[in-house]
């Protein structure tokens, strides 16, 4: 409903600025994001209409808390997809990070050393894959698939069991709540996830690196001919993705105060699907981090609604996500066709 209210004023504004345009048409590159936003609002409004207590602010706030890991991973994935690549290893990097963090903390390592160490490891893994992709011309799909096997293999090698974390810093962060109002509180993990989104959006919009990412996604050959640092940028996006996946793993260990090698399997597909729902084109060169954020929120909203409904089983989550994916891809297809 809110969307309809919002449109007429902008129609008038546009008409005033540009008299040749009679009907307001948003810039085609924003249509997928606006559609996702509209869908999110429709889902939220129908949730409020159908379920008791859905209108509590905590429902929205908890979306960020429950999907903090996916959100951070999706931010990294957005960078990779914008260059036209793909990173299948993120789920495995999460599992490696959680296992390694838990093991090191159990071994009595100082937490302030463990944290940078595992983040660095994730970034290094990503950089390694990026280098293999760029210098040895191995396809991203295959190189990151090998990375998936390697990271999960390492995780399983370290420990196959779930490892509890009793470190003070971790348990403090896990129990910490940040008050946002009278009855609403959120976790530090949600704040970290949201900051990751904001930083990534700023980097993509206002830095030279961000422009290079879009340029490579548009056409890597042209970017090279223009003298842009293709090698550095391409390795950097996989580094960012690896770092984000490791950060996601750390957030997971904070949320659950444990590490498990089987954690995070399938996260790569959730992240890719979130990007697509958020309007990031898999061919590269088009999309926004805020779109990915909306994609993750749609994902989370589906889960929330299914939770509130109560009698739907988890099979429906997959089916609904599949149907939504289909709808969004079809929409993108129509939009890009019209733009040509």
């Amino acid at each position: 409903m809110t969307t309809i209210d919002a449109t007429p004023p902008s129609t008038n504004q546009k008409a005033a600025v540009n008299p040749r345009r009679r009907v307001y048409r948003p810039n085609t590159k924003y249509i997928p994001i606006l559609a996702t936003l509209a869908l999110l609002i429709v889902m939220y409004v129908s949730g409020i209409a159908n379920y008791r207590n859905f209108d509590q602010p905590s429902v929205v706030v908890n979306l960020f808390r429950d999907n903090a890991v996916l959100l951070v991973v999706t931010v990294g994935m957005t960078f990779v997809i914008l260059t036209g690549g793909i990173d299948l290893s993120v789920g495995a990097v999460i599992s490696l990070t959680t296992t390694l963090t838990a093991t090191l903390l159990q071994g009595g390592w100082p937490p302030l050393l463990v944290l940078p160490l595992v983040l660095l490891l994730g970034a290094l893994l990503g950089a390694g894959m990026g280098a293999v992709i760029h210098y040895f011309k191995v396809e991203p799909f295959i190189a990151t698939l090998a990375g998936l096997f390697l990271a999960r293999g390492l995780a399983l090698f370290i420990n196959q069991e779930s490892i509890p974390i009793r470190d003070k810093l971790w348990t403090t962060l896990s129990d910490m709540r940040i008050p946002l109002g009278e009855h609403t509180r959120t976790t530090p993990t949600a704040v970290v996830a949201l900051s990751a989104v904001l930083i990534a959006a700023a980097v993509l919009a206002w830095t030279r690196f961000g422009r290079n990412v879009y340029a490579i996604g548009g056409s890597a050959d042209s970017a090279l001919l223009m003298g842009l640092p293709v090698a550095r940028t391409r390795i950097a996006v996989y580094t960012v993705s690896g770092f984000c996946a490791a950060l996601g793993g750390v957030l997971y260990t904070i949320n659950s105060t444990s590490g498990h090698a089987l954690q995070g399997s399938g996260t790569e597909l959730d992240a890719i699907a979130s990007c697509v729902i958020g309007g990031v084109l898999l061919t590269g060169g088009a999309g926004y981090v805020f779109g990915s954020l909306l994609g993750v929120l749609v994902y989370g909203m589906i889960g929330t609604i299914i939770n509130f409904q109560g009698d739907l089983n988890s099979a429906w989550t997959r089916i609904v996500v599949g149907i939504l994916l289909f709808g969004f891809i079809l929409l993108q297809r129509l939009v890009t066709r019209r733009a040509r």
Partner: protein
Amino acid sequence: MTILKNRLFWPAAILLALLIVNVFTSNQFITLQDGHLFGTLIDILRGSAPLILVSLGMTLVISTGGIDLSVGSVMAISGAVACLLIKDLGNQNAVGSVLLIMAVAIAVSAALGLWNGSLVAIVGIQPIIATLILMVAGRGLAQLITAGQIINVQSSPYATIATGFFLTLPVAFLIALAAIGLIAVLTRRTALGLLLESVGGSPSASRLAGIQAKRITVMVYVVSGALAGLAGLIYSANIKSADSIYAGNLIELDAILAVVIGGTALIGGRFSILGTVLGAVLIQTLQVTVVGIGVPSKATLLFKAVVVVVLCLSQSVTFREKVFGRFKSRPAVRAEVPA
């Protein structure tokens, strides 16, 4: 030199090395027992059947420049449909009904392939995304079909396709062999293979040349779906139940890996049936070997990862040039360029 340069040299060498390791580590590599062959080699052949079938379909899809991520979900659906129908049979051992049910399951899988193919060829969605839809939703569908339960069946004709033997060889391997033969003949003895490679090379140029590119694209996804369905039947017959969560889990990655090991480029336009079969058998052998040589179960995936990394790098032309190129004398390299 020419043998060394063949794309299939390194995979074949690694396969041979793994098999030789198995000769020494396994109690029985190959023997005749109870009227049929028995041993590690036979286990490998039997176990690799589902992966071979899925990889064959994947090869055809990849040859047209596509990819099919939904094969694992299709396997789960096919097994679920078959087990659900067999469970309701009055006599679960009736051969005719079981065959009919298997045909139904494969037809359902082919229909799912048709859905994928239509999205790719007619709607024009990128293959990785078009098949991602069914990959995500398909497992949910399989869970709905089985109502979240694991359906057990007690049907000996059904179990035969996974565990039976015919003419001393495992039936599952014979099914895979038949599929390999059929596809090899269809693609290499008719113009079909050429058309596939042409569509993979450039769909629009193929269309201008009078090839019905869309029809061929839809067809490869239908074949991939049907083969995945057959693989799903063998998988579920092996465990005599429908497991909608673990059936075909991550098999799409193994299948794509098998195809790439076999020298088929992911960008399309070229494919090798023999290479794919080699790749699939190699992956299965690797899994059997890891257990055979006593690598602890927690290190199996790490072992696999190392082999995969070595394989991928050894197949990268740029990598070979950069690493091994230094050992060659420079004039020799220069002399090769003009020729």
